[in-house]
């Protein structure tokens, strides 16, 4: 396979393998030797540290330089030889770097965050195992192994969601997560099998490279043709649907997204790493891997679903009061963006957004983790019965937690996509391309970018709401429970360092030296299918309009949630009148827009809980019902036939016995009668 591979490349490959395997080694060490030891956190952290350094080295060596593909015989089944191998191209090294770099601060953070938990070591076992699976997932070169790690990633997520397995809700949530993921897995597996059937290989490089097997297969006369294999074209659609199911389940797209908000039952650091930054992005990554498979119509469907998901999740996020749930819905929303971007052909931008989103969402979650942790401290110190995640209880925390506040602010702004942040670059890129795409496709498609823009404003609103409610104003707890002691702070360096690191990554310079134009980002040029866009009017209009309106929305949010302070501070004068007038507008908004939006939000949330979740539950109920029927059949029909045959045996036996009444004359009579009957029958029938 790799006879002619130069030394440098072999080294690169070794590095990549090491980067993948190190977390696994940490897992094994923790599992076998460090049962309850606090050392396990450091073992995992060091592993991921080395892993991330190696990843970065690999990244620099491969990015835009070459593709390295190494494979080794795994097993032979029939005529098929399966290889296990590593495919390092721009996409995989980008993900490799991303995952390990994000994982590092989360590990550091976790050593502090989980230090008092009884399952400290177990936590790091799971975490390392997750990192291993995720890193392996991104570098694997064939679909079977991809699927394998895809599921292992889901499995470690299952373990981590149910980390506190004595909590009923956590267990419920992890079961739900796994089963919904399993639905996606089945889709993916089916798709893989279909592809295998069609192309007789699992090799990603062979399948999806330029001019690869996928590219050279055609659809003709309702047949899907590649080489000598002809399959009805419907199976191509099913393969795409299967992959989409996989993507939807993993990346929480409509209608398989309901597990993600529930997944917040896990530790917050886990949410940051898995359910915000990395694992949920695996779906988008998969789309990137198999991108050539999708044709125009399928991509459009993808875009529509992504867009709808983004919008729906954003509206739901508007009214949530649980800190982590808001973030979870925002994650869904952002993932929707990415899927939509994939759908509209903005392949590179989608992945770009994936990367930027990973950083800022991770940052947001870690910050949220600190906030929740501190509120929990308050709760425990004062023996209160409150939900530490409820933002209604918070407020005014910016003075107590300055660093956290700044980090959240940066993260929030990036999430909204305001200039100077990384989020701006990627999000505007998506929006611009969406408009261009819609213009190209026709006016009806304009709905998509418009909806995306609205989503963007909704995002601005709920982010502002979140930040305002948590960090501004007064501590609600104090008003509710006066006299409680509050001794909280940002925490030690193990909290601060990750926040600082990630905050830096959320700013523009990491991705593009030009803070205002996404087209200048190096990332986009590295991803093969980025074509480069012609200058269009949208390049200017969209960012401006979107951002200005975002600011306005944020301001409204400010007015809505902090408005009392405005009234109090400015009773008279121009400011008051403006404020007053704006209050009219605000009331207008309040009456019409906000109420409407809130109502919409409630409705979608209701829809989400009752209909979609209800549907999932219904499926479960149907499953259980069918199970009941099957069980009944088994007991009464299938087994019944058996018992019936036993009864028949007894009946025949009973008949034969009836002659045995002990009277010898009766016996004789029976015998003679039988002889005569036989004789008569013989005469009648056989003659």
């Amino acid at each position, binding site marked *: 396979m790799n006879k002619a591979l130069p030394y440098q490349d072999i080294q690169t490959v070794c590095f990549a393998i090491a980067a993948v395997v190190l977390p696994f080694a940490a897992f094994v060490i923790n599992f076998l030797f460090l049962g309850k030891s606090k050392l396990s956190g450091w073992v995992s952290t060091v592993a991921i540290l080395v892993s991330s350094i190696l990843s970065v080295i690999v990244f620099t060596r491969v990015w835009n330089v070459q593709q390295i593909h190494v494979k080794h015989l795994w097993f032979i089944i029939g005529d098929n030889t399966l290889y296990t191998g590593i495919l390092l191209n721009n996409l995989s090294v980008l993900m490799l770097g991303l995952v390990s770099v994000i994982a590092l601060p989360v590990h550091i953070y976790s050593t502090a965050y989980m230090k008092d938990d009884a399952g400290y070591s177990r936590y790091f076992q799971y975490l390392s195992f997750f990192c291993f699976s995720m890193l392996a997932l991104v570098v694997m070169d064939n679909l079977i192994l991809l699927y394998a790690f895809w599921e292992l990633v889901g499995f470690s997520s299952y373990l981590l969601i149910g980390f506190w397995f004595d909590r009923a809700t956590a267990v419920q949530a992890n079961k739900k997560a796994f089963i919904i993921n399993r639905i996606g897995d089945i889709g993916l597996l089916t798709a893989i099998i279909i592809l295998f059937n069609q192309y007789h290989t699992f090799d990603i490089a062979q399948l999806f490279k330029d001019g690869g097997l996928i590219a050279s297969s055609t659809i003709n006369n309702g047949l899907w043709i590649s080489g000598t294999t002809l399959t009805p074209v419907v199976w191509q659609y099913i393969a795409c649907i299967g992959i989409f199911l996989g993507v939807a389940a993993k990346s929480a797209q409509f209608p398989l997204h309901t597990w993600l908000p529930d997944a917040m039952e896990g530790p917050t650091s886990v949410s940051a790493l898995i359910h915000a930054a990395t694992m949920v992005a695996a779906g988008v990554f998969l789309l990137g891997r198999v991108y050539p498979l999708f044709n125009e119509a399928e991509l459009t469907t993808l875009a529509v679903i992504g867009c709808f998901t983004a919008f729906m999740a954003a509206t739901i996020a508007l009214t949530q009061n649980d800190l982590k749930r808001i973030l979870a819905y925002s994650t869904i929303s952002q993932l929707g963006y990415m899927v939509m971007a994939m759908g509209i052909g903005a392949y590179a931008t989608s992945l770009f957004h994936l990367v930027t989103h990973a950083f800022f969402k991770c940052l947001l979650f870690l910050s949220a983790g600190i906030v929740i942790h501190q509120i929990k401290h308050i709760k425990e110190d004062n023996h209160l019965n409150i939900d530490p995640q409820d933002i209604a209880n918070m407020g005014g925390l910016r003075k107590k937690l300055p660093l956290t506040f700044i980090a959240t602010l940066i993260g929030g702004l990036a999430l909204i996509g305001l200039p100077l942040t990384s989020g701006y670059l990627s999000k505007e890129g998506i929006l611009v391309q969406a408009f261009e795409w819609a213009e190209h496709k026709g006016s009806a498609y304009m709905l998509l970018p418009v909806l995306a823009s609205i989503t963007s404003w909704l995002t601005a609103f709920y982010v502002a709401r979140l930040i305002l409610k948590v960090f501004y104003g007064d501590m609600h707890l104090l008003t509710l429970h006066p006299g409680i002691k509050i001794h909280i702070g940002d925490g030690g360096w193990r909290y601060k360092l990750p926040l600082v690191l990630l905050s830096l990554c959320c700013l523009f310079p990491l991705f593009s030296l030009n803070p205002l134009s996404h087209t200048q980002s190096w990332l986009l040029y590295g991803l093969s299918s980025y074509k480069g866009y012609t200058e269009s009017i949208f390049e200017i209009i969209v960012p401006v309009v979107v951002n200005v309106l975002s600011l306005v929305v944020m301001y409204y949010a400010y007015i809505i949630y902090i408005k009392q302070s405005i009234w109090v501070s400015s009773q008279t004068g121009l400011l008051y009148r403006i404020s007053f007038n704006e209050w009219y507008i605000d009331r207008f908004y309040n009456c019409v827009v906000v109420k409407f939006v809130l109502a919409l939000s409630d409705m979608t949330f209701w829809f989400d809980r009752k209909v979609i979740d209800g549907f999932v539950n219904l499926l479960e109920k149907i499953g259980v019902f069918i199970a009941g029927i099957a069980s009944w059949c088994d007991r009464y029909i299938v087994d019944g036939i058996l018992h019936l045959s036993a009864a028949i045996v007894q009946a025949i036996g009973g008949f034969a*016995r009836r002659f*045995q*009444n*002990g*009277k*010898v*004359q009766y016996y*004789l*009579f029976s015998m*003679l009668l039988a002889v005569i009957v036989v004789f008569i029958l013989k005469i009648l029938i056989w003659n």
Partner: protein
Amino acid sequence: MITLTDFMIVSAVLFCTGMFVIISKKNSIQILIGIELMLNAAILNLVAFGKYDRINNSGQMFALFAIVLAAATTAVALAIILNVYKQYKTIDPDKIKQLKD
């Protein structure tokens, strides 16, 4: 002239009578008599047919054997019936039915 057919008819009648006796009578001895009737029907046949078997005279010979054997059987049967009477104080086969399903 008594033809072969007449013999056969008589024997058939005897046979049927014997059969009827066997089935209907409520006394073991009578049943034995019925059996004797049936045997005699057969013996009658044998003798009648034997007339046409001039070389071996097997029919007549057979008849002799049959008569002897019938006597032996009857002797054994009577002995058993006697025993039954000792045990059950009846020889009605219908009443002797301890052995049954």
